[in-house]
């Protein structure tokens, strides 16, 4: 890499995307992907909080074997609403709509996403879906489980199924539009020199995620629409009274919802690839394998939905095929894990907060993935299906994996997003609290489930109490661990140390512009002459992101003039 030249910074460089314009209107009508990312950040945090409250209610109820805190009907609603909010309104948009929105254009050297107006529209659609869902919760709630299985949802449930379904239907379009925007942006807007194999792995992961979003989400949309009509007008595709098949609903639902679990975890894997390489200060081991394994997961993820129907009247032969394919889909995930660990080998590792989250991800995701293989084995699944073993499995992946990756990424890019550093000490402390609290919450659930504790009941046989007490204790620790970052991140926006352009001294494009970046990201179009994760000798790295002494002005320094 050639040492770039520094030059006089125009006064305009003082202006960044946050202070470029003021007033509510400048935010609500913004077309800047970075501002939209912040709008999303605020809204998903809100939904995460609501989902978290429901989780606390579940754990409180399960402290004792008797159903004493919530009635069974209320309990059904509480776990349903926990699931709906966490899956559709937090995890699915979490990384793509915030970090992805912020970083995809910056990492490829573009000024914005290809369709800024559609990007803003996607946020409004998300909000509309969210408002309708909240209405469903306030009006009386839903009790079908986040899976909405027919015929209970179509015929028997006395709750606000249609409103909740409508909310999910609508918010689905926001994820379709986000995926569409990413795909087009990555194809058409890469800066000169930014070839496909120079793309950061975060981008590959988002590309793969977008594929799943555009291919899967329309299917859940039509499924929910048919479900709503069926409930509303007693027309039937899932209704046995006219010859329909309720299991068709399960097929359609999981055709989306299994790939959707990869919508949640793939972006997180992208974040972890960045963190592992950058905090080991080493090129990632097996770049192409990691990149293509994302695509492989996206493609094969569509072929395994039947592992959710092993005990739902699916033929044994179909079961065997789905079981085999589920084992196959674990291979690309394993490839990633092995490449990450190989990257760590002989790296100069620093244990900053983001890296702690990344290391946590690797361990917890591995446990989640391995137990997925248990579940994918036909005979074992018959035993543990619909028990707490399944609950523990997917929480290891969705919380231990997806959420930890999100938090790691949020800390890592926080200086870029907010222009401020978060307090490192508190960061490391809360990462540890989250890790401990998480394991205490969900490890006992594997045991309880394996011993036969079913999921989705408010009461349980007394011999399971010890596991549930451990789990509830863990949940409160986890809750505290998640509140700490919320507090200090908000605090740091005002009082944190000012961040340099490149606080971690890294080669990625997003670090070669000011923190926070100007509205157009780069004052001049960057020209990429280096590979991803190419760590330059220290003296050259020094130059990058360092500007005139004594000022906090930062501006991009490489590009074609």
């Amino acid at each position, binding site marked *: 890499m050639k040492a770039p030249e520094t030059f006089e910074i125009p006064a305009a460089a003082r202006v960044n995307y946050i202070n470029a314009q003021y007033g509510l209107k400048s935010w609500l009508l913004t077309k800047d992907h970075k501002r939209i990312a912040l709008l999303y950040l605020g809204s998903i945090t809100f939904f995460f909080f609501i989902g978290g409250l429901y989780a606390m209610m579940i754990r409180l109820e399960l402290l004792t074997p008797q159903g004493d805190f919530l009635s069974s009907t209320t309990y059904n609603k509480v776990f349903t609403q926990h699931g709906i909010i966490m899956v559709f309104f937090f995890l699915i948009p979490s990384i793509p709509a915030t970090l992805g929105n912020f970083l995809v254009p910056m990492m490829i050297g573009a000024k*914005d996403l290809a369709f800024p107006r559609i990007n803003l529209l996607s946020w409004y659609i998300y909000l509309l879906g969210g408002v309708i869902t909240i209405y469903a919760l306030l009006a009386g709630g839903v009790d079908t489980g986040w899976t909405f299985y027919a015929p209970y949802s179509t015929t028997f449930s006395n709750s606000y199924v249609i409103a909740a379904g409508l909310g999910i239907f609508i918010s689905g379009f926001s994820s379709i539009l986000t995926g*569409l925007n990413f795909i087009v942006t990555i194809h*058409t807007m890469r800066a000169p020199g930014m070839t496909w194999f120079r793309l950061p792995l975060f981008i590959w992961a988002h590309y793969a995620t977008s594929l799943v979003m555009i*291919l899967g989400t329309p299917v859940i949309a039509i499924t929910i629409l048919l479900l709503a009509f069926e409930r509303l007008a007693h027309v039937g*595709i899932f209704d046995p009274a006219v*010859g329909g098949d309720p299991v068709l609903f399960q097929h359609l639902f999981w055709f989306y919802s299994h790939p959707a679990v990869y919508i949640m975890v793939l972006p997180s894997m992208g974040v972890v690839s960045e963190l592992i390489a950058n905090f080991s200060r080493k090129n990632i081991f097996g770049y192409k394998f990691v990149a293509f394994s994302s695509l492989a997961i996206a493609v094969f993820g569509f072929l395994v939905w039947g592992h959710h129907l092993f005990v739902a009247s699916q033929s044994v032969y179909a079961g065997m095929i789905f079981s085999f394919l589920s084992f196959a889909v674990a291979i690309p995930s394993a490839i990633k894990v092995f490449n990450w660990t190989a990257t760590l080998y002989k790296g100069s590792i620093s244990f900053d907060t983001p890296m702690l989250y990344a290391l946590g991800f690797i361990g917890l995701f591995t446990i989640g993935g391995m137990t997925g293989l248990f579940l994918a084995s036909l005979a074992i699944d018959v035993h543990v299906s619909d028990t707490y073993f399944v609950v523990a499995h997917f929480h290891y992946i969705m919380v231990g994996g997806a959420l930890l990756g999100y938090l790691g990424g949020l800390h890592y890019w926080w200086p870029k997003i907010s222009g401020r550093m978060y307090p490192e000490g508190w960061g490391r402390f809360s990462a540890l609290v989250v890790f401990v609290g998480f394991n205490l919450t969900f490890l006992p659930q594997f045991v309880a489930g394996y011993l036969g504790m079913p999921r989705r009941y408010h009461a349980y046989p007394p011999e399971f109490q010890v596991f549930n007490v451990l789990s509830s204790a863990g949940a409160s620790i986890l809750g505290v661990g998640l509140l700490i970052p919320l507090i200090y991140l908000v605090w740091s926006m005002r009082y944190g140390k000012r961040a340099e352009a490149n606080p971690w001294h890294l080669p990625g494009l997003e670090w070669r512009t000011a923190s926070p970046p100007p509205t157009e990201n780069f004052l001049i179009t960057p020209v990429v002459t280096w590979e991803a994760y190419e760590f330059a000798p220290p003296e050259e790295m020094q130059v990058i992101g360092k500007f005139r002494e004594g000022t906090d002005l930062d501006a991009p320094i490489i590009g074609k003039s």
Partner: protein
Amino acid sequence: MEHKASHPALQHHFENLEQQREAGTLGMWVFLVTEIMFFGGMFLAYTLYRTKYPQAFASASNHLSLPLGTINTGVLILSSFTMALAVYSAQTGKRRGQIVCLALTLLLGLTFLGIKAIEYHDKYVDHLIPGRLIPGRPFDASGVHLLPGAAKQNVEMFYWIYFAMTGMHAVHMIIGVGLLSVILYFAARGRYGPEYHNPVEISGLYWHFVDIIWIFLFPLLYLLGRHLEH
């Protein structure tokens, strides 16, 4: 930095019109892929139940109006032709041609919707609207000639699939008509020419797509059991 004066239609975040056009076109293709998946769910349900209840589906299908369906197919194919001509006129800068072809396409689209409305009305008169879609007017298959082995409730299933698929298709037609009206308005004001015509092109893509959906719907829904009826 600034090169030649940029075209007024060039948005600030694109380098040039070529890039903007590529993005717009790819965006529409990606969107159409999502549409295929969306309709795919219904095609799946259709395939499943048609295999399960062939006689009922054939009986119900035979009751649809073949002449109206055929005319509508012709109307849509013709509208795709005029749409293609509109795109061509935009690319070659023929303003009058653009306006005429877009107007014709719009007209044909509206004709399709009108004929569809007549068909829907016939089904209403025959009590063939499934479930409680029309409150107080339950489905009644007694007017449908049942082939041997056909069960009435499965005839109702066919009609729900028919209404779901053609209804969703009609919704897409209505959106298309709206889209083309906007394009027609700007075309009349001379916005599109050889340099900049991407909106016309991608609206054309959308229009052709909606046509193709119908090209699949027509044989699947209208023609599937004609040979069984004597």
